[in-house]
């Protein structure tokens, strides 16, 4: 078995300890935000669980769970302004939800329907990006467009620890540093790239150190502490918006799930490691903090869970009842206008599937 976990997961910068106590004080003014974060994390966790079970019962496509990584997604989403542009990879349901992508749209996409990427809100956000790290260059392009047009907007790009090894990421980081682009890179370092553990991904002590060779600040935060993530990203976003250039944030977390529903992590990692990692997971520590502060209790928990489940079920029902696109959908958005040359193929398709 490979091993990924080396240090205690939360040795890097954080506010909220694994047991819900505070390492650094958090201003009371921020408590409403913490509450919102908690609610959002619960929503995504409940929704995520449903997605996995939909897949297990054959009504869904391959799905990458965000279990254990909710704090990163929610922290990032909370740190962005509406007019900013989010450039996700494929494990960004949490941030997308906060950006305004509906649970229905998320279901449609992972259910295998392109309409799931036609976001009705956040229409400038980029869709899920499957080819690893390529989204980083797109984010650099988005940020360049802000710079060219002198707009005070920021592009936020996320990627995995595995993605940090791919040229696209490093080329983008280098460009961002060179052009002082208004953008923030967030690495979701969940310790695994499918079966490849963090130490086989890079000899660098900290992935955040890749920022040094690109001329920008790089920072590690505890990715299981939503407030730490939020604060780091917010500071970086504000800085970028103020024209002070890009930053890289490495949020350290752990993938508590299989890579996707097509993966079986027990083939390559030990159960003990997984069990250990659960001690550091992000939802429970935030609940403990909120309960300690008297901001949350058991009955609120139950009511909110029910609410999240209802949201989920409603979206799932809508999804399951959505008719597939017609066969010719594959031609409909291929070009702005279908070239006449493709009309023959279009006709063949219709004849074959007589739509």
């Amino acid at each position, binding site marked *: *078995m*490979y091993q990924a976990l080396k240090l205690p997961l939360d040795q890097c910068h954080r506010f909220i300890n694994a047991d819900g106590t505070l390492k650094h004080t958090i201003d009371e003014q921020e408590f409403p935000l913490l509450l919102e974060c908690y609610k959002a994390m619960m929503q995504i966790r409940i929704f995520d669980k449903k997605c996995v079970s939909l897949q297990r019962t054959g009504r869904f*496509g*391959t799905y990458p769970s965000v279990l254990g990584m909710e704090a990163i997604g929610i922290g990032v989403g909370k740190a962005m302004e509406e007019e900013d542009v989010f450039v996700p990879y*494929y494990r960004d349901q949490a941030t997308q939800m906060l950006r305004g992508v509906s649970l229905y749209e998320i279901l449609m*996409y992972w*259910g*295998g*329907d*392109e309409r799931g990427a036609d976001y009705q809100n956040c229409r400038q956000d980029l869709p899920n990006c*499957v*080819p*690893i*790290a390529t989204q980083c260059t797109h984010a650099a392009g988005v940020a360049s467009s802000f710079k060219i047009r002198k707009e005070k907007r920021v592009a936020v790009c996320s990627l995995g620890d*595995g*993605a940090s*090894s*791919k*040229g*696209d990421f490093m080329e983008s980081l280098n460009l961002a540093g060179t052009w002082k682009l208004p953008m923030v890179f967030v690495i979701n370092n969940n310790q695994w*790239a*499918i*079966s*490849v553990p963090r130490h*086989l*991904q*890079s000899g660098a002590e900290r992935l955040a150190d890749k920022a040094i060779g690109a001329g920008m600040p790089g920072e590690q935060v505890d990715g299981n502490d939503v407030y730490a993530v939020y604060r780091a990203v917010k500071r970086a976003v504000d800085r970028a918006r103020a024209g002070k250039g890009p930053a890289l944030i490495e949020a350290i977390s752990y993938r508590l799930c299989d890579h996707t529903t*097509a*993966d079986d992590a027990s*083939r*390559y990692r030990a159960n003990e490691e997984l069990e250990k990692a659960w001690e550091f997971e992000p939802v429970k520590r935030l609940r403990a903090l909120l309960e300690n502060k008297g901001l949350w209790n058991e009955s609120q928990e139950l009511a909110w869970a029910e609410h999240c489940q209802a949201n989920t079920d409603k979206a799932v029902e809508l999804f399951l009842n959505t008719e*597939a*696109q017609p*066969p010719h*959908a*594959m*031609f409909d958005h*291929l070009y702005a206008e279908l070239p006449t040359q*493709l009309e023959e*193929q279009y006709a*063949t*398709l219709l004849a*074959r*599937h007589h739509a």
Partner: protein
Amino acid sequence: MNAPLKELQPNAKVLKDQTLLEAVNAALFTAMGNDDDVVLLGEDVGMNGGVFRATAGLQEAFGNHRVMDTPLAEALIAGVAVGMSTQGLKPVAELQFMGFVFPAFEHIACHAARMRNRTRGRLSCPIVFRAPFGGGIHAPEHHSESTEALFAHLPGIRVVIPSSPRRAYGLLLSAIESPDPVLFLEPKRIYRSLKSDIIDDGQGLPLDTCFTLKEGSDITLVSWGALVTETLDAAHELEAHGISAEVIDLGTIKPLDEATILASVMKTGRCVIAHEACHSFGVGAEIAAMLAEKALFNLRAPIARVTGYDTIMPLPTNEHYYMPRTNDIVEAAINTLQYE
């Protein structure tokens, strides 16, 4: 069509009911066992044994210096294979899906394919680039491409595609033995759906040669990869209509064994080419063009291509609309036969 098993060599094992994946795995085991210079590298090929399990057990058997999990970077994987091969290793580099082969393109086209020519034979690149390809398994975007035509156009390499467990075993062994780079594309739709017995005797099957899987006299059906299954099915359906179809499996896409195809079409006068890749500028075009040049006046009907569309492969829900089906091949064959 399963030909009877060859006579058993000494040391040969018969492996019963092997899937194409198991055949690939067996070929890798055998090649690595026979030659210390054969090494594997790629994403998740080690402990995990590959996301499809094609390399399962190999790291355990041969150690992590010969079966290497790389960082996540396809350009790197291909380039490292190039460097290794110039020093006499025989790397088998896995690209996790053909949809992710693009970052490796430069190293395949500009280096692996050219090193021998560039150095007048001083250095060479005996690499096998393995990649699962093709649609029909309800995978996410970029996991279903069939872009063999892009590589077939490149001078200096070979493109090989098996269509059965037995051919996977034999062709992969020959690809690894080949002194030149081979892109070995594994049709993942039939990774587990076909089974046959394999003689694990280390014997390769010939490269650069088409396989005639069924003889026939009325029409020639040409295909490769997963679609060979539908093509054979189509041939059997046609038989029920009293039509005798010859079925050719390309096996090696580049260089193309024109002679076998040409001889068949000279005989039958009719040809249907079936492939899953986009229609235009695909491998089918070269076959048809070659026939239009060399068999023009033997053709008794236009050459038909049954292919995917010039579209992006739809996400899983509508994927089936894209895929050519047995019936499409049957219809095209009948139209060709009824042409006047």
